[in-house]
Every structure is written in C-alpha cells, then in structure tokens.
C-alpha cells in the first residue's frame, strides 16, 4: 500500500511537469514517464467494452443471378445463410429488382457479430435493365436517412448502425471487359458506398485469361473514373507490403463452395470437376482467401470507418444543404451553411406561418368575390322574372281586349239579327192580317 502511494506521488509530480510545458508553447513534448501509469490498458478497456456491445456489419451483394453470390456468402462466413430449407433469392424468379436483407448473429471467441446481408435479386436479369440500380440506391439512402434521424434525435440512447458498410459487386467472367451495366452501376454507387468489384465464378478462367481480364477491368475502371474502395496506407512496412499485394490482385477473382472434398488425403473446400478439384482456399486457384482476410480479418473496421467518415458525411451534407437551400433564392450563395439548424427551424416556422396567413387572406378574398357574384346573379334573375311577368300581363290584357271586342261584335250581330227577326215577325203578322182581310173580302164578294 505504501509503495503504491509513493508511486502515485511521483506520477503526479511527473504529470505536473509535462502539463506546464504544454501550456507554455502549445506543443506536446513526449515525456518519459517515471513509472507505470496504466493507460496502456486503454485498448483492452475499449476491446472489452466493444466485445460486450458486439459488432455490426452490413454487407451488400449485387450482381446478376447465377453468379454464385449466395454460395460465396456461405463460404465467407462458413454458415448456410441460404440453405435448402430457406432457399436464397437466387432460387426465386424476380420480375423486378428487390432488396432483401437477412440478419445473422455469429459468435467467435467471445466476440459477437451481427451480420446483415443485403441481397438484390432480380438485378440485371430483365430484358430492360434501365434504372435497375435505383432500388439499391434508395435502400442505401434510406439507411443513411435512418441514421441521420437517429443522430438528430433528442434521445440518442439506442443508435443501431444499419448503414451499408460494403458492397460486393459481382462481375461475370466473360474475359473481355466490363459490361455497360457494370460501369453504369459502379459509377452511380461509388460515392455512396464502398464498392469492391469481384470476378465471380473465377474457375472459368485460366490464369492467363484472368490476368488479362483483371488488367482490362482496372483499365476501364480508371477510364470511367470509378472510385472503388481503396486500402488505407499504413506506416507499418509489413502491412503496406500486404496491401500492395492486394492492390495488384484487384479485382479479386473468387470461387465459392461449402462442399468439402478430399484431395491427396486432406480435406478442402472446393468444386469437383472431372479434370480436377478447384480449391477455394488455395491461393493459386483463386483469390478467395485474400478477400476473406481483407474483409473480415483486417479491414472490416476500416470499411466501417470509411462509410461513417466519408460516405455518410457526404450524404449528410448534401441532405442538410438541400434543407437549408430550400425556399432560398437560387442567386444566394449556396455556401451559407453557417446557419444553425435551430435558427433555420425558426425561420422556417415563421415562413410557414406567413404562408398560412397569406393563404387565409386569399381564401377570404375568393369567398367575397364568389358571394358578390352570386348576389349579382340573383338580382339579374329577379329582374328577368319581373320583365317576363310584365310581358305576360301585357299579353293577357291584349287577349282580354280582343275577346271583349269579339263579344261586342257578337252582341251587335245578335241585336241586329233579333231586330231582323222582329221585323220578319211583324211582316209575317202583317201578311197574315192582310190575308185574313183579303179572305174576308174575298168571302164577301
């Protein structure tokens, strides 16, 4: 106990010394410690914490159907992600490009890895493959958006990282060069995700053909300025040698298999042909081991870092720039990203409120106008009705007069006729009287 206290005293003194030198000139001079402090234990602490938390890794596989993607995944992770009971997407015929993900929890040596495999069945299989990359881009962007939203939330306790860390693109082993579809896809995705091109079913090619093919592909990739995943430079000599070796072999030519075959007494994974066995883990047969080591054993963390620092940040700045520039005059400088999001939100709110007010007044105006119109219409129709009413009355009077006229005429005629009748009657009477008189006269004679 005593010795411990003594040591710590020494240490404190030592620390004070180095601190002063820092404040003086803002440079940190390396100092030798006079005892064991213990922060060398830091990596172990990080390690223990991470192991407890577990790791996440999302791997996307893209390529035409029949290129051995599922087999390769099974070989890489030595599991049957796609087995006979749960056939992979390759066994099902897809009419449009789908994006499917499957999660697998793998444990090895106490370390837990949540592996998510994103598959794209239907890619490049239709007759017309225009825009078959769009579902893939949408998927990647949606994962970025989820992460962005999670990051911007108030409560950030649980932040699952579902972003796509690596995209394995499978090139068909034609032996000639890249197809237009390959070029188009990689061009559109190289700034959204780490693209690692692979030559699929490499046991189709002889070593010479493979060399030529790889050269041709790299040439075309450079021609079209496609940025595939680049290995980081390290200061360590050994590592950089390794990295240089890997770079020479790009794109990696892989063969996948989970079938174990016996060759010369040893058991290997491979493919049995009548002319020999193509071994998956033999470096002279294919680059599978290189891929596996790189992907899992050495560069998994780097892939995640690049995704986080480069691709995600690109997405984020683009997205947020779009938000701040929304509604802003196009002539204004696009570099005005200095507005803090909160001020931005205030401004947006004010804008929104103004907009609402404007809309309200507009609506009222419209309403008024409509009311006026209606009133006018009603008045018009009333006047119209009045006019018609007058008109009808006049007609009626005219008819009445006519009828009166006719009646009068009729009366006149009647009176005439009666008068005539009377005269006739009188005449008749007179005539009969005269006859009687004549009769009498006659008789007398």
């Amino acid at each position, binding site marked *: 106990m005593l010795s411990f206290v003594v040591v710590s005293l020494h240490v404190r003194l030592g620390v004070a010394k180095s601190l002063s030198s820092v404040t003086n000139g803002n440079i940190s001079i390396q100092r030798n410690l006079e005892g064991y402090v213990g922060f060398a234990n830091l990596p172990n602490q990080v390690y223990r914490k991470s192991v407890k938390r577990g790791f996440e890794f999302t791997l996307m596989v893209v390529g*035409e*159907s*029949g*290129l051995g993607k599922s087999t390769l995944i099974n070989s890489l992770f030595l599991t049957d992600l796609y087995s006979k009971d749960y056939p992979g997407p*390759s*066994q099902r*015929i897809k009419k449009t490009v789908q994006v499917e993900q499957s999660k697998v929890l793998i444990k090895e040596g106490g370390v837990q890895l949540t592996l998510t495999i994103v598959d794209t069945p239907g890619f490049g*299989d*239709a*007759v*017309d*493959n*225009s825009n*078959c990359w769009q579902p893939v881009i949408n998927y990647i962007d949606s994962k970025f958006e989820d992460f962005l939203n999670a990051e911007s939330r108030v409560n950030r306790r649980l932040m699952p990282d579902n972003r796509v860390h690596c995209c394995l693109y499978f090139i*068909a*082993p*034609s*032996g*000639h*060069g890249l*197809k*237009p*579809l390959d070029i*188009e896809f990689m061009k559109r995705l190289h700034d959204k995700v780490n693209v690692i091109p692979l030559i699929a*079913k490499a*046991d*189709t090619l*002889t*070593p010479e053909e493979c060399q*030529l093919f790889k050269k*041709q592909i790299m*040439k075309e990739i450079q021609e079209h300025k496609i940025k595939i995943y680049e290995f980081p430079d390290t200061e360590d000599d050994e590592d950089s040698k390794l990295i240089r070796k890997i770079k020479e072999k790009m794109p990696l030519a892989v063969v996948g298999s989970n079938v174990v075959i016996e060759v010369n007494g040893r058991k290997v994974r491979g*493919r*049995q*042909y*009548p*002319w*020999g*066995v*193509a*071994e998956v883990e*033999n470096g*002279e*047969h294919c680059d599978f081991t290189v891929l596996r080591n790189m992907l899992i054993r050495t560069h998994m963390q780097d892939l995640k870092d690049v995704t986080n620092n480069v691709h995600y940040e690109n997405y984020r700045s683009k997205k947020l720039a779009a938000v701040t520039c929304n509604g802003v005059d196009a002539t204004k400088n696009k570099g005005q990203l200095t507005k803090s999001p909160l001020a931005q939100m205030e401004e947006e709110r004010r804008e929104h409120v103004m907009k609402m007010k404007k809309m309200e007044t507009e609506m009222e105006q419209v309403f008024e106008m409509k009311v006026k119109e209606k009133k006018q219409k009603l008045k018009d129709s009333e006047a119209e009705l009045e006019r018609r009413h007058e008109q009808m009355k006049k007609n009626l009077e005219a008819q009445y007069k006519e009828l009166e006229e006719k009646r009068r005429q009729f009366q006149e005629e009647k009176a005439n006729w009666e008068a005539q009748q009377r005269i006739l009657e009188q005449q008749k009477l007179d005539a009969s009287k005269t006859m009687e008189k004549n009769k009498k006269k006659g008789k007398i004679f």
Partner: protein
Amino acid sequence: SKMSESVPPEVRPKPAVPAKPSHVAPPSRSALLGYIGIDTIIEQMRKKTMKTGFDFNIMVVGQSGLGKSTLVNTLFKSQVSRRSTNWSRDEKIPKTVEIKSVSHVIEEGGVKMKLTVIDTPGFGDQINNENCWEPISKYINEQYEKFLKEEVNIARKKRIPDTRVHCCLYFISPTGHSLRQLDIEFMKHLSRVVNIIPVIAKSDTLTLDEKTEFKQKVRKELEACGIECYPQKEFDEDMEDKSDNDKIREAMPFAVVGSDKEYQANGKRILGRKTPWGVVEVENPNHCEFSLLRDFMIRSHLQDLKEVTHNIHYETYRAKRLNDNGGLHPISSSGFSSRTFCMDTPCLCE
C-alpha cells in the same frame, strides 16, 4: 469415256447391254437381267457435290464473352470466326446489335465448303435489351427474301447463292439456375424462323451434378414456353429418325467448352484449357459435350439442317409472302416483281 477415267477402281460399270444370262434360273419379272449401274448414282452425286462444293451458313448468338468465336473456331478446326480475322481485345461493345458475317472456304477430303459465320455483336449487352432480336430476325428474313427473289426471277441463275441461315447456335450463360428472360424471348421469336440449337457456353464452370440439373431445368422451361429447337419433333420422317433424334433431344442443350490451344496430356496433344487444377479436354466426352455437338451438327445432321431450312422455314416464309400478295404469283417482268416485293418488307435496295 469420261466416266471410266474418274471412277475409282472398285465401282467399274458394266456395259449397259444386258449380259448373257448367268447360271441363275430365269429371273422373275422384277429382277434385273444384269447389273445396270443404277447404284452408281450415289457416286455421281458425290462427284458433283465435290465439284460444286456447298454452302453452310451458321449464326452465333449470345452475350459477349460467352466463347462464341472460340467455339466456332474449334468446331471447324480453323480460324474462321470474325474475331480471328480482325479483332482487338478492347473492341468496344456496339450500341446496337450488329450483324457481321465472315466467309471462308474450307476443304476436307476433296469436299469444298463455303462456310459463313454470322456474328451478332451487341446482342444482350446493353442495359436495355428490348427487342434486340429484331435486327437478327430482320437479317434472317432478308436472306429468305433474297432467295425468293432469285427463285421467282424469269431468268434464273443456275445455282442460286444460298445465304440463308441454316443453323443458329444460341449460347446460354452457365448460371446454373434457369434461362434468362432474354433467352426465352429470343428463342420464342426465332424458333419458328430458323433452326436454333441451344448450347450451354463455358460449361467448365459447372460440376457434373450442376450440369445435369441445369440441363433439365432448361429443357423443362423450353417445353413450358412451347419453344421447339432443332431437331424439331414434327419433322422426324420415320422411326429411325425419331429414335436418333430423341436421343439427341434428351442430351440437349449441349454443355460445351471451346478452345483453340493444344496441350500435352496422356502422351498426346489435345485441345483444351489449362487450369491450375487440371486440363479441361475439349474432345473428351467425360469433360464436356463438344464432341457430341460436333458430331451431331457436322457429321450427321449437316445436310438435314440445310434441308429443314430449305423445305420448311423457307417454304413457310415463301407461303406467307405469296399469300400477302393475295395468292398471286408475280410472274411478270422482274421489274414488276421487284416492285411487288418492295411493298411491305424492308426493301433490299440493290
């Protein structure tokens, strides 16, 4: 006479006059009184054919990188493909399907063959491959049209040059799963117009089990879509034909590997592909079915391919064309006939 000079010694024609009756009993009515020499007709035909030689036109269709040119070179054991004549490794994929044909005259055993290989670069290579079979269909019909024009001419050539496509090798990509949509569309549109022989390209990528499974799948799919490849069932002439062709139909599509490089194996030089795990022997039936394809196409069915093209596909085209003319056979001057033909088909402006 001329005949006695060029006839090989075994077949010596006896004089045409009936010889004196041999020791055989008086022959019945139908028996010949002696040797006439009718059977020498085979020999006469053979000589004629050898002199005139014959044409064979083969078309290869498939996505780029499936080994079409290599296979054709292997089939005819010479550098007859377009790629061998003028090709650079970084030749760009054309934006539309082009039809390029290269002709060679090859000779074997005194028999001359004018072989024309018709290549279709750009097929299935674009992002959007809608209707990429149309240029091919157009080309095939144009050849029929050419032949028909020559045939209906008043002054016909003695031997009409035959540019019709006798055989179309369709290359299927060895995915191991099923046919692609493009494959089905192509074969649907063209199986009634030309003899299609589907082959599985670069089949050294499939193990034996995968091969059998794939072939079965392909056959099933072709049947389900009603696609009939050569040899078509309906054209089997007799039982012998049928049994022969049935065997072939069971083995189709042939899983082939092509190579024009020779390697040393088992003490002899063979055509093959050398991989770090073994040499794929092209002509070994245990390794791939190239020899089956070659025997089928060249050694037994070459003439049949031409006959089916002439008697069936060409006749179908001809009937359709003449029916479109209202059943009238344009027999007036060639000027009129060319005008008639120019009506609704793309004009072969000569």
